[in-house]
């Protein structure tokens, strides 16, 4: 897994990333926030953080153009047409479109968006990262120090702070990768 220059984040990712937010800018040069996503952020703490990082050019506003919004709406419709899929909405659909067209890493905790990238072949090449992949990359690139006596320390902290649960299979894979760096 390599770090990318640009990422684009959806609402839930930004909200839940409180403790580790600035690690993002050691993994990515710039994280874009679509205007559609920004409109969903309401709390003073998150707005203050976004405003200060916009000032520092670590975050950047992504203004969606008409054809991206139209394509995103098409993707929302597709997600609702496939039986039993987890539906997505416009903000995460825009992130997926930008990921596909511009090659940005899509940062999301939305299971529907993650599923689209695995299930719909047109989106298979889009890099969709959860907090898990960002934390793993931060470990593998030296942004976070690896504690060989407790290789999952930061992952467990993240889960406890945010009340997230990563699938056991994924956590096992992460442990194996990090432990291989300790040998």
């Amino acid at each position, binding site marked *: 897994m390599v770090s990318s220059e640009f990422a684009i984040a959806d*609402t*839930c990712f930004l*909200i*839940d990333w409180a403790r580790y937010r600035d690690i993002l800018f050691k993994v990515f040069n710039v994280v874009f926030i679509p205007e559609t996503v920004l409109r*969903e*952020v*309401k*709390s003073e703490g*998150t707005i203050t953080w976004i405003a200060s990082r916009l000032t520092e050019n670590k975050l950047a506003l992504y203004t969606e153009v008409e054809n991206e919004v139209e394509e995103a709406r098409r993707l929302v419709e*597709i997600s609702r*047409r*496939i039986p*039993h*899929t*987890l*539906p997505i*909405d416009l903000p995460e659909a825009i992130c997926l479109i930008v990921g596909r067209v511009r090659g940005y890493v899509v940062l999301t*905790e939305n*299971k*529907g968006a*993650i*599923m689209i990238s*695995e*299930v*719909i*072949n*047109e989106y*298979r090449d889009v890099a969709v990262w*959860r*907090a*898990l992949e960002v934390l793993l990359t931060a470990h593998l690139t030296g942004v976070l120090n690896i504690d060989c006596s407790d290789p999952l320390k930061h992952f467990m902290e993240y889960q406890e702070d*945010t*009340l*997230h*649960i*990563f*699938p056991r299979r994924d956590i096992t894979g992460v442990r194996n990768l990090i432990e291989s760096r300790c040998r």
Partner: protein
Amino acid sequence: MRVDVDESRLRKWLEEAEEARRIRKAMANWEFIEKQVPRVREALKYYIETGDIRRASVLAGMDIEDFRELLRRANIPVVV
């Protein structure tokens, strides 16, 4: 319009979605949930069933950030 779907991966995802629903249901603080006003209570139950925070927050009449905080108070995890 034809959509090119990977059916085997879709089956895997549906199994994971069911497992996530089971985890949310098992971990939730049901006493807390049942004490909420009907609109919020039903929104929390909807989230447990679907994992869909955007629609759940609309049902609750809250913005996503406030609803996310409510999920923490109700001990309902985000399974990703």
